[in-house]
């Protein structure tokens, strides 16, 4: 059971971290609370499913196409829906909620409410110390690790990453220094949604595809981001691991654990917030200028 907890926590933590980092980046750079973030994750899963089972393209091609397609779609949505109301924070907020609902309903209309299964990308299991780990879970873990390192490289070792961090730090000054903050916002949206889409593609084989699959990760992702501190990369990763392990422990040790896992994870978040309102690694609040 201990091994199960360790593996499940690590794999789920990887997926959650991919989602949480993207959400946190969009919030930091563009000040958008993107409720539709996990809806893009769902769209990528559907896209992957369709390409794989209806058009019979290979795993790799299907994955790449769905990530690219969803990223492109996010840019279109940003230009058409978010950009015109950027100045009104509340309007942006419900625009993203409405976008999420629209995607959910479109998928419901197109595919119905059934749970759809996607075959594993790699079959087979690996045995480590008496516990069998499916290769699919190892793949998720590997992809998550590679993407996290790539994100770190992108943010801390490239000029665009520098600009993104500068914009997140202080939008006005970044603008005065000649950075195109609108373009930075678009780059961030594309990059973050790309991360969510990758998470959707690799995680689909172990979770079923259905139109409401975006709600559970949405809440978990928000809890992680708040727990780790909004806008903090390290906080998102550590928060994701904490929440994933708490969920895994609850599911494997408590009776009725499957019902309680969300409640326990969210309870942990509330407890952390009571002690540190800015999250584990967030910067303490300063008054907005």
């Amino acid at each position, binding site marked *: 059971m201990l091994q199960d907890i360790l593996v499940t926590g690590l794999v789920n933590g990887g997926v959650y971290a991919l989602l949480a980092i993207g959400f946190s980046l969009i919030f930091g750079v563009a000040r958008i*609370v993107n409720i539709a973030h996990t809806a893009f994750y769902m769209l990528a899963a559907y896209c992957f499913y369709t390409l794989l089972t209806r058009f019979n393209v290979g795993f790799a091609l299907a994955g790449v196409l769905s990530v690219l397609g969803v990223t492109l779609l996010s840019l279109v949505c940003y230009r058409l829906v978010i950009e015109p109301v950027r100045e009104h924070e*509340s309007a942006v907020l419900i625009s993203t909620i*409405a976008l999420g609902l629209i995607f959910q309903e479109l998928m419901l209309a197109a595919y119905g409410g059934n749970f759809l299964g996607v075959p594993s990308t790699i079959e087979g299991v690996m045995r480590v110390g008496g516990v069998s780990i499916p290769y699919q879970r190892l793949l998720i873990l590997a992809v998550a690790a590679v993407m996290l390192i790539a994100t770190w490289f992108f943010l801390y070792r490239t000029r665009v990453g520098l600009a993104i961090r500068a914009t997140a730090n202080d939008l006005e000054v970044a603008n005065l220094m000649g950075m195109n903050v609108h373009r930075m916002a678009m780059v961030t949206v594309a990059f973050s949604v790309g991360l969510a889409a990758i998470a959707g593609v690799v995680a689909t084989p172990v979770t079923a595809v259905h139109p409401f699959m975006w709600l559970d990760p949405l809440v978990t992702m*928000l809890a992680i981001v708040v727990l780790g501190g909004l806008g903090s990369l390290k906080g998102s990763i550590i928060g994701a691991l904490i929440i994933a392990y708490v969920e895994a422990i609850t599911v494997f040790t408590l009776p009725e654990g499957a019902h309680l896992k969300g409640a326990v994870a*969210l309870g942990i978040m*509330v407890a952390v*917030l009571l002690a540190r*309102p800015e999250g584990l690694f967030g910067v303490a609040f300063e008054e907005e200028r």
Partner: protein
Amino acid sequence: MYLLRRAWAEMRNEILVLPSRTLVLVWVVGLLLLPLAYDDAYVLRILTMTCIFAIFAASWDLLAGYTGQVNFGHALFFGAGAYGSALASLKLGVSPWLTIWLGAAVAALFGYLSGYLCLRLRGSYLSLATLAFPLIGLGLLFAFPDFSGGELGVSGLQRLIVGPTANYYLACVSMLVVVFGLWLIADSRFGIVLHAIRDDEVAARASGINTPRYKLAVFALSAAAAGFSGALLAHYLRVAGPSTLEVALSFQVVIWGIFGGVATIYGPVVAVFILYPLTEWLGSFRHFGELRLLIFAVIVLLVLLFMPRGLTPWVRDRVEAQCPRCKQRNSVWRKICRLCGAPLQAQVARAERLVGHQ
């Protein structure tokens, strides 16, 4: 006779001079007279639900619009009211006329608790943290099905009154009373303090306002109103189910509030009266039935693209203008101000309007 003449004068001078007030009057009278003219059970049922949800939306606005505590988990209070009232009336056998107050009290307690947890949080942190509260409640409900009925909820409740028309009047009158009460509160000194807390909490504290106490008070108050509407709905539908705590309901109330225009109280009510019957009406078509949520979301999106501050502020700016001298509102077609006689030039008025909304 004197009283009648007095009432007429009041009405002409205070209500009919402004288009928005006239609209409110027409709406109230229309709501009260509707069952006399047209008492189709289906229409009355939809309007009863609309009235109940209008209370819920208005209570959200007091918390989120006025005080700036944008709550993403308002369904917690709705569910607390519904379950509190339902369990009390079923397990203790108390009359529902008493238990709806108990439901509101339970909700107020929950409001106080979540307000206490949120005291140190601000802005987006607060929104995202509050989203968690109803889900924790939902997890607990599912984990203890003996007590809460699990997926099915608590069913077999008594209605408050029998008959569609009586139920309609009950919901409608409670809606008018609660919404008017909330509006009075929001317009009082208390409401001004709430405005101050939203605009600049540090400045409010520096002016000697005990902001935590006000925040807790408004959390409890708003939760009590929401719990009251939840209890009304539970006894109207005769079931309190887990759907009263879902994320969808929390999001729904945010959409209503922002669509109607925040910090107005009447805005969310208007939004509910437009959007709820609209979705029900769309649902009654066979082909649209599956797509009604989609159409709902698209309508919200399109309306926001053109009226980013919400529906009612947009409409209000079209029919009314602010007097440049005394800042009183006038209907837009007047040449001079109704109170101070200053000329209302279109350009001056428009500039003032922009300043007035900063």
